[in-house]
């Protein structure tokens, strides 16, 4: 009697083990199959051009949906994708510079960013001040290529919005 029970238990245990693992494997493969290994879209790390090609202020790169912002010989890159629900923000040049206090620091700003979809507005450094956007526009790392001295933006690396790259 006891051996039968034990055999039964083993059988159930084995079938759960075998079919459970099988189901797990299948589920893993199924989900994984939805992630292509390469994508037909602009790369996350890319060259944006030589420093001299940019003009002072935000330069919108539609393909990558970023602003490359030039101030003299200092560069930084801001995402143009609204942190609320992903519409494209447009930059709005201010007629008169405005002094605002952002995170305890007083800065003078010449432009702002607006999102048309749900009315979010951002200060020049990407900090939201009205509308539903929850977080600042992320700033991406800017570096320079050793080969042709072109600027490189890496969307994988988010940096502090105060960080500048000097050419």
């Amino acid at each position: 009697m006891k051996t039968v029970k034990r055999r039964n238990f083993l059988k159930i245990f084995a079938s759960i083990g075998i079919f459970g693992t099988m189901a797990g494997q299948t589920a893993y493969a199924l989900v994984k199959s939805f992630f292509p290994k390469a994508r037909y879209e602009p790369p996350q790390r890319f060259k944006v051009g030589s420093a001299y090609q940019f003009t002072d202020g935000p330069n919108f790169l539609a393909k990558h949906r970023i602003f490359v912002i030039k101030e003299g010989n200092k560069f930084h890159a801001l995402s143009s994708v609204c942190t609320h629900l992903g519409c494209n923000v447009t930059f709005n040049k201010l007629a008169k510079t405005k002094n605002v206090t952002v995170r305890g620091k007083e800065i003078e700003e010449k432009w702002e960013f607006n999102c048309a979809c749900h009315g979010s507005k951002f200060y020049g450094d990407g900090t939201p001040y009205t509308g539903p956007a929850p977080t600042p526009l992320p700033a991406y790392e800017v570096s320079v290529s050793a080969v042709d001295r072109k600027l490189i933006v890496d969307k994988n690396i988010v940096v502090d919005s105060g960080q500048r790259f000097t050419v």
Partner: protein
Amino acid sequence: MTNDTDMKKLAERETLKILILGFVILVLVGVMMWKEARSEWRQYQQGFIKVLQEHTDPSSDPGKVASGVKQIYLPRANRVDRCQTCHLGIDSKGLEKAPLPYLTHPEPTITWIHPIERFGCTLCHEGQGYALTKAEAHGDVSRRLWPKPILPKEFLQASCGKCHNPDLMEQDAPKLFAGKRLYKEKGCIDCHKIGSVGGSIGSEHTDLARFSISYLLESVMNPTANDPGSAMPNLGFTEEKAKALLVFMLSLDKTYIPYKYKTVLQQ
């Protein structure tokens, strides 16, 4: 308690409803077929027969010319133009004085250099080549539905600038040439940027063709009209001057035009 005759009456009423509704659907489907048969372009094609006989040989039979949707397919330029479905006489002789939309393309030299079968219509004229109703094809609809309406004749030379260098077009496209000169004279490039050239005080001018003409005109003549915070001074454009400038501005179009269409220019 209902008796049998009541039930029969009820059943008959239900049958009647089925018949009536069946008839209603019959009529509605009839209306649908009528709408398809009476499409706008078919009516234009019917009108063409009369016009053709009036202007050319009265016994001429347009036959196949005026039947069915006509289409120019330009796979390289990614364009499909069905304009000739209504503009039937565009390359016919004898229809030079016919009324719109049947008349021959004015200025035959331009269609000689830019053959219609190779360039289609919308590469120069804009509008919606896919559409088969007048309003949609000409873009006389909300800009939300179609962003590039047909270019009015006074701005048409803007399209030359999509391939040709405006500076070399003094004879061939004088309006475009004048517009470019005005753009240079006023020093627009100091504040505005085209491609990677120009200043960054004003807005970018790389793809101005996506805006409506009325908006551009207003912005040129009165910079603060559309953007109260604009730093641009009022340059005192008269409407005439502004329009000349606009011809050049509208030629700043990022729409892809394949190299093949520009090969002749390189030689």
